[in-house]
């Protein structure tokens, strides 16, 4: 069942690649948030308890509700709705992502041979990480960089759950809080940038150089 969810997660990534509407990005973020918390809850489905549910709920709240809404707000403020001038053809981008995904899956399969990992969640987590990085690399809009960063974080989150490293609750919460604050600060920064530079785009950030 976990594997199914992970596959779904991967699908969201692919969809993320082909779409060009920012709104869709946000909804994908939401979906991923839901999926992630589902994946977290799933193993304990039989013996649920408040203590276990805290983290999933928190992540649900932050990842699926707060952050997407916040980003939505930024998008509306800046009133950018679609990706103009993508610096890479969507098709090539898709090709790239698919290629890397498949490599990751193969690699994961190979690794699972002699280390105890479940290949599918592992691989999908990594695909998410890679996709996030590629989003940052191949898109110019700062807001999409933020989204890419979030995808990356989601990937890591999934990875964490799949590896099932016991994190103390406080640490989990701390990490999630951190992510949130980071995004928050980034949002403020983007606002500032678009107000100072009249264009919220990496190309404007070229003053500091040697």
């Amino acid at each position: 069942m976990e594997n199914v969810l992970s596959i779904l997660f991967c699908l969201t990534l692919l969809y993320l690649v082909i779409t060009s509407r920012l709104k869709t990005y946000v909804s994908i973020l939401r979906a991923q948030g839901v999926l992630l918390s589902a994946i977290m809850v799933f193993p304990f489905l039989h013996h649920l308890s408040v203590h276990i549910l805290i983290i999933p709920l928190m992540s649900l709240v932050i990842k699926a509700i707060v952050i997407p809404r916040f980003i939505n707000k930024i998008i509306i403020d800046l009133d950018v709705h679609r990706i103009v001038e993508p610096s890479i053809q969507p098709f090539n981008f898709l090709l790239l992502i698919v290629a890397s995904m498949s490599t990751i899956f193969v690699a994961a399969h190979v690794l699972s041979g002699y280390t105890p990992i479940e290949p599918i969640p592992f691989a999908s987590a990594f695909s998410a990480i890679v996709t996030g990085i590629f989003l940052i690399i191949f898109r110019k809009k700062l807001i999409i960089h933020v989204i890419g960063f979030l995808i990356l974080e989601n990937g890591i989150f999934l990875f964490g759950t799949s590896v099932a490293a016991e994190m103390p609750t406080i640490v989990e919460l701390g990490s999630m809080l951190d992510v949130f604050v980071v995004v928050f600060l980034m949002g403020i920064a983007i606002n500032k940038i678009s107000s100072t530079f009249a264009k919220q785009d990496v190309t404007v950030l070229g003053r500091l150089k040697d």
Partner: protein
Amino acid sequence: MIQYLFLIGCILLLIGAIAALLIRPVKQALFFVVVINVLALVVNLIFALMRLIALPAVTDLFPVFPDNASLFRADGLALFFLLVITAVAVPTIISAYTYLQHYLHKEASVRSFLTSFSLLLLSTQVVVFVNHSILFLVFWELMTLTAYLGMLLEKEKEEVQKGSFVYFATMHMATFILYIFFFLLHDHFGSWLFSDYHLSLTTGTIFYLVCGFGFLGFGIKAGFMPMHFWLPWAHPIAPAPLSAFLSGVIIKTGIYGIFRVIEFCSPLPVWMGIAILVLSVFSAIFGVWYALAQHDIKKLLAYHSIENIGIIGIGIGLGVLGVTYSVQSLVWLGFGGALFHIFNHAIFKTLLFLGSGVICNNCHTRDIEKMGGIVHHASWFVALFLIGSIAISGIPPLNGFMSEFLIYKGFFNASASLGNYFPLLMLLLAVGLAFVGGLALVCFTKINSIMFLGTERSKLQSFIVSRSEYTALGILASLCILFGIYPQSLLGIISSVITFNHAGIILQPYKMFTHWEFLTVIFACVLLTIVCMILWKKFNTQQRISQAWGCGYTPLTPRMQYTASSYADEINSISSHMLHLEKDVTAPKTLFPQQSHFISHSDDFSEKKFIAPIYRYIINKIDTFELLSRTDIRFYITFMLIMAIIYGGIAIVWPH
């Protein structure tokens, strides 16, 4: 009691360094610092002499501090260098008193100069006693640093910035080389103490590595060609007392280091001794030849330091050969000549640099083409400067000749005692040295006659030489004469130093090697002839002053005089390619000649051919390197990814 003297001297110097910053007004500070430094130096001079006369090695240099026994060691060589340093530093400080009077309006600069100079004196005196590698490096770097700070007296001048920087950078490089040198030694012996280092040829590569790095590192400091390029930069821009000290003492510390290297790795192989000889004669000849092409008095003197370092190097090379073949007489002549010349060069080069300081302050230029006729203002000063010039040209009856004489004797001795092809080599070296002597003669006749004699090329209202300057120059000049007429006074000490530092070799008394008394007689009679002739002239003739004979032309004008360029041109044009000599000539052409002139100047080959191109190459490469100077954040992320992949690749190909 004696062992406290050095400590007292050092403390006094420290007091001077601090006092320079505190005492107000700056005039008082200057006076106080000069006095206290002279005091300290005299104390240390006494210390050095007393130790040298009764020469066992002393380890407890700072008796009040516990267990410094292993850190410091006052052996013969160290004490000899202390003698040199103090003997030179006293007059330097004395004349610095007047020199700095010209800069009193720049209070901060004067204060910093005084402080750094006192600290320079301190570190230079301590560094020769250090027995511990790291401590040695510390004082070595302190020496560099304080000398650098001293150069900043006129830091707002462009050339001062450039020159001091070249000095600083070069010294830094030399220190890096010395790091490796000491690390290698420590690696091999597992100890930081000089006294534990004794390499022999059997150790193989480490021996050659140590020698290589040692000679390179110290050679840069000493200014052997082709590592000399920093001297013509540093000496001209330094204040006269400092450049005197630089040329008199600081570069000698490089020689000190070379002596230590020879001590660590002995016996050196024969080819190394020969290499030292060849390199040294090379530096001697080209040093003096470049000097001949200069018109900046201080730059010219700087090149002469290179020449004299070359001569010292020849002595060292002979000594090395002597050690290798265990020919005691050669050891004595070589090392003895080197040490003696170190002392002599320190004396007369300081004399000349201090004199040049006086000249620069009065004429407000360093270009000798603009001077002339100074003798009519200050004939005593000229006489003193002349003594220095005669001494440095290695002409009897002054001290410069004496050390060269020893080295010549070394040549003869080597060719007689070493046999096979050595006579050929030695003859060539001797001829080289003779050639150097001839060129030096030309060079110093040039500067003396162009600067002092004839008539003034540019108006010179007054030429003031203060009392302190006369004292300083007087001391040095009288030392020149003393060691010329009565060299035994120093040779006794030197031979005991050599006997001490090359233990095992029991040396015959130095009198064996030449009839010094006989020499003394000759020089005495030369002087005697001069004196009696002068008297005779006094009584004998009636004199008349008249206009110079102009061959029927209108009386001479200052612009008719020979210039330095044209004076040196005859000899320089022989090797104009090697000197990178550039001439700018417009000869008088028509029947009624128009404006015509002749200027020549030469560039340093090692700077022009090696240093500058390499540096420029690197800078160009850097300028064209654009990969990492991107501003787009996406590149940074890409770099991250790439590095992760690269490291991952390494991890995959990693053996286990």
